């Protein structure tokens, strides 16, 4: 029998933080108590929080089709290094995940790597072209529970309505990347004072808000579970807040970068601050933070979007969109937002696992439960410099952050410790 003992842990539970030891036997939490002993390995967690392994419902692992940027192996390593035990991969691969066999391929590859539970999101439309429905039944049968054409909005309201009606019946979640093409065409950054100075075309805040407002009308009609991806504007936060007050089945996510950085970053024209939705005004950053704190935004999701170094080493407007985020997420959230430990783990583990229906993830530790855990020291300062991801396109490189993942355990196996992924 394989044993691991976590000692001196500040264990995070639904009711608060308690000083405990946690004994893991094989894949299961065997005992939680004080003065526990083991014949196996001991990890001293002094000063660190121990909570359920983090869950990220929005990552891009680029496999199949763009493995030079990242693959399910390197992406899983980045997830483990970031304290994650489950990720939901977006379907904008090549080919897009629009049929059952493709979803099964992603799941199988994740199991092969074994560092983190990998679950694909399914495309809403075939090839993400926004023209006809993807094979929603097949995807559902393969285990897909959340659907998105992420990278693009589903523009056609009639098509989106049919997807919503269909998935409402099954209980699936329709997730939208809200970006109106007409309003956002040719934009490379937030449309505002900084884009005006730089003479760059911008993506206006209303390009996001008009899509969400329209979609909420369709949610009212269809009753589908609707999820807003990477909320970036104060207006979207307010739309979600009102929809929840109305009782609509709506959830939303915030990325770490939208919690910390604003469009002033773009003045240096560094492609590592180029992503969609773009960095917005300081007032938007404040609103996204407040939304995460009060629960209007249910979860943190990274939108981990790796690109090869040479692809980003070009002028800003020429650069592909997206930044990596898995390995800095916990520290960025811990630095940018003052969440208590329970809320921190709710937003980063419990709620995201619940949202996509992962029974073994996002559970407060208890004897008999699956041993998916993270040891996180929230007080140590760290300056990110090297990554387990294949990519390095992070705006947080060289920035002082507070918080460090000490160890990650997935299914009873240590996948990350001593600064190294345990391959």
């Amino acid at each position: 029998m394989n044993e691991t003992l976590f000692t001196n842990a500040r264990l995070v539970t639904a009711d608060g933080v308690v000083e405990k030891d946690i004994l893991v036997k094989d894949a299961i939490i065997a005992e939680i108590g004080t003065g526990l002993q083991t014949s196996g390995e001991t990890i001293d967690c002094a000063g660190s929080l121990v909570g359920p392994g983090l869950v990220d419902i929005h990552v891009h692992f680029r496999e199949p089709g763009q493995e030079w940027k990242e693959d399910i192996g390197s992406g899983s390593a980045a997830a483990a290094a970031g304290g994650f035990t489950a990720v939901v991969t977006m379907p904008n691969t090549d080919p897009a995940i629009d049929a059952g066999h493709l979803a099964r391929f992603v799941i199988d590859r994740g199991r092969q790597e074994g560092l983190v539970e990998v679950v694909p999101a399914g495309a809403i439309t075939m090839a993400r072209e926004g023209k006809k429905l993807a094979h929603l039944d097949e995807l559902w049968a393969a285990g897909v529970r959340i659907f998105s054409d992420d990278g693009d909005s589903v523009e056609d309201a009639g098509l989106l309505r049919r997807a919503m009606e269909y998935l409402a019946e099954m209980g699936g979640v329709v997730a939208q990347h809200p970006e109106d093409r007409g309003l956002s065409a040719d934009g490379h950054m937030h449309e505002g004072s900084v884009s005006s100075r730089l003479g760059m075309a911008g993506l206006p805040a209303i390009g996001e808000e008009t899509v969400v407002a329209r979609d909420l009308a369709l949610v009212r009609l269809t009753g589908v579970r609707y999820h807003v991806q990477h909320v970036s504007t104060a207006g979207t936060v307010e739309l979600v807040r009102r929809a929840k007050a109305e009782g609509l089945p709506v959830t939303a996510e915030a990325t770490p970068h939208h919690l910390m950085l604003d469009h002033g970053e773009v003045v240096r024209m560094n492609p590592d601050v180029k992503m969609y939705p773009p960095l917005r005004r300081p007032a938007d950053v404040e609103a996204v933070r407040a939304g995460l704190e009060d629960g209007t935004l249910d979860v943190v999701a990274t939108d981990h979007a790796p690109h090869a170094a040479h692809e980003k080493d070009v002028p800003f407007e020429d650069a592909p969109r997206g930044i990596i985020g898995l390995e800095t997420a916990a520290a960025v959230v811990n630095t940018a937002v003052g969440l208590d430990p329970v809320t921190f783990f709710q937003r980063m583990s419990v709620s995201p696992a619940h949202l996509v229906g992962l029974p073994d993830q996002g559970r407060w530790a208890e004897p008999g439960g699956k041993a998916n855990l993270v040891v996180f020291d929230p007080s140590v300062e760290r300056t990110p410099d090297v990554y387990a991801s294949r990519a390095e396109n992070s705006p947080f490189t060289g920035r002082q952050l507070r918080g460090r993942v000490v160890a990650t355990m997935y299914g009873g196996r240590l996948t990350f410790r001593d600064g190294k992924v345990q391959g």
Partner: protein
Amino acid sequence: MKHFLSTDDISRADLESLLDLSDEFVEVLARPIPKVPALRGKTVAMLFFEASTRTRLSFERAAKALSADTMSFSPSTSSLSKGESLKDTALTIKAMGADALVVRHQFTGAQWRIADWTGLPVLNAGDGAHQHPTQALLDALTIRQHFGKLDGLRIAIVGDIRHSRVARSDISTFSTLGAEVTLVAPSTLLPVDMEGWPVKVAGSIDDVLDVDVVYLLRIQAERGGASVFPSLPEYVTRFGMTRERFARLAENAIVMHPGPMNRGVEIAPEVADHPRARILEQVANGVAVRMAVLFRLLGGEASDE
């Protein structure tokens, strides 16, 4: 001064010193043999990733009048069409022995990246709709020649401000030198958010006919104004420098344009050919200010920075 990238961060003293130096080169260019040996042995590479006639020729003329050698590059015949990256192109030209790069690019900030990659002095000959700093210098020189100063002058910039790198460079240059700038354009051609800009805004050219300088920007007539204003005739009605409007300008006022002009759109043909339209003086001054900037970057004189 290591690079010449933007007018945003140049002090009034540095601008005035560049204009004074430009005056000296105006005098050089008027000599029987309009050439000095200041940059003999230096090589200036012209990298124009976006089509240009006047700016490119003007920089070549300026470099040659300083006795520098030039080499140039155009994207249609280059390895760019074979997929070479901008970085590799820039490093390749550096390896051939260029001492400075004059760069025009359709993307904002490309020159800043090239400066980082190569470590060579870079002169921005226009990046996207962001900056065109030598144009602003030649505009300031042209105004100073006519009025003796910019301090206290009132200057109206009319037209497609939103997409104009000339406007962005001119606004900061003119206001740093003490002029009062008013922008005139339909709201679809104004920048979305001008918070903190040292400008006033007017909705019609008729509101600003009492200024000292009317600076007309080129309307992209080839786009027919599609989707930014209803039609060219409607633009002319509200914003065109017609003969009638020209007649209402102050006696000493001048009209300027960065070229190329659309006669009959932003400027009436008779206005374009009038002596108080300083458009060809602007072109001539372009050579002198580019000599001044090249000399500052490559001439080995102590800089203010």
